[in-house]
């Protein structure tokens, strides 16, 4: 009886080990193939805007790849995921950080590079829903794009994003990260910043963090 119990325990242990190994391997392989690695904050799921000052202080090594830092809304709709995003990006071969506005709406994808974002400048980026029924993207206080979506509130994010695990990320300094409630009031971000492995986040508070 005891022998049988031992066999069962061993079998159970083996099965558990196997399951854990498969889970770890799957996670590893997913990460290895993942297109992006994120560092920053997410506020789910019914908010009317996000804004943050984002500052780069050096040009990282991004050989064969690229990265970005941005604020965005994001919402699931029947056709997939839609968003309006503004920030800056840096790719292999670029002569500096380039600010951009990107959107996905009704199956059309759009990305426009607008200008340079210079080092040591904490430029304000903002995406918000306004009374005209459109979501608006602002870059350093200038209006850059407005778009109608089927939703007036969404998940909002302020993120740094690396497109490969083997590149340097930033560092990017996020300050004054705020989200906007559906009643129109801006609040300091209260979600805890996180970092996908192998990148890091140094948190001063939930609305002030360094992504690297």
């Amino acid at each position, binding site marked *: 009886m005891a022998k049988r119990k031992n066999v069962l325990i061993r079998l159970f242990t083996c099965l558990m080990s196997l399951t854990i190994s498969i889970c770890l391997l799957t996670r590893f392989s997913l990460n290895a193939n993942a*297109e992006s690695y994120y560092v920053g904050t997410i506020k789910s799921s019914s908010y009317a805007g996000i804004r943050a000052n984002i500052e780069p202080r050096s040009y990282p090594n991004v050989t064969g790849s690229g990265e970005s830092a941005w604020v965005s809304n994001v919402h699931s709709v029947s056709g997939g995921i839609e968003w309006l995003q503004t920030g800056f990006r840096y790719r292999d*071969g670029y002569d500096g950080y380039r600010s951009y506005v990107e959107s996905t709406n009704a199956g059309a*994808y759009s*990305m*426009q590079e607008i200008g340079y974002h210079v080092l040591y400048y904490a430029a304000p980026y903002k995406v918000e829903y306004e009374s005209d029924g459109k979501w608006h993207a602002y870059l350093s206080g200038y209006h850059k*794009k407005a778009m109608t979506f089927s939703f007036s509130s969404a998940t909002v994010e302020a993120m740094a994003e690396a497109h490969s695990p083997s590149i340097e990320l930033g560092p990017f300094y996020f300050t004054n990260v705020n989200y906007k409630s559906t009643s129109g009031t801006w609040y300091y971000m209260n979600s805890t910043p996180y970092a996908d492995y192998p990148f890091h986040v140094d948190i001063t508070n939930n609305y002030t963090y360094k992504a690297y």
Partner: protein
Amino acid sequence: MEKKKTGLRFRVLVVFSIIAILCAISLGYVFKNLPTAFAEEDYLTNQFVKDGINIESCVYSKADNSLKVSIVSDTDSDQIDPETIRVMRVARNKIRYELEDLAIVNSSKNYNEVIMNSNRKVLIDSDTDILEFPPFPECKSLRNSIGEKVDVEKLKSQLNDYFSSDYRFDVSNSDSSGTTVSISLFCSEKNDDEINEKIAQLVMKIDSMNRESAGIHQLEISVYAESESNLVLYMYSDLVYRDFLWWQTPDIKTQWTKY
């Protein structure tokens, strides 16, 4: 007495004449501006129609500094299709490169692009300043090179040196919008990572060719997977304005900008 009366009449006549001249000038100004804006809206509409674009309306608002162009797509779906992406690019090119001298275009800070499906349901309603020119050095030299004679064979040979046999190229040239490189890419299977990675690499390589003065102003990419008729991604980008616009099948869960 008679002399005094004549003097008064003369003064009344002078005042009346001044008022009449001022009225004529004001009315002339109003009528001069109104027909110009209307005429330019009509002209713009006709130019779009000439390029095969189905225009619902084309309206300039001086108060909003805005040009609203409503385009009807052939699709009856609630989602944009590849052909609509092509039409959106043709319309933007028209405004940026052919009609930028029209008063209603160059005074507009806002291009309101409205895309409707064939049932007149609005799919996209977007505002942006499409005439804002980016400050990147390659954009300025690209803009200056539009209209220059292009050695198509040399460009094709450069492209062949850069890319493998998975790609097919076509190079065309327009006096107004410059050189378009159309690339067809064939993938044996529909693999998100493979497709997005290839497009990101392709854009990087075209950018690097442009830094060496290749002079590619427009980039059109069609990606086929599993069979040569199965279009899974269509992109039509303006490299002068760094304006990337594309459609991809919903089966592709990520996008090339993340690679």
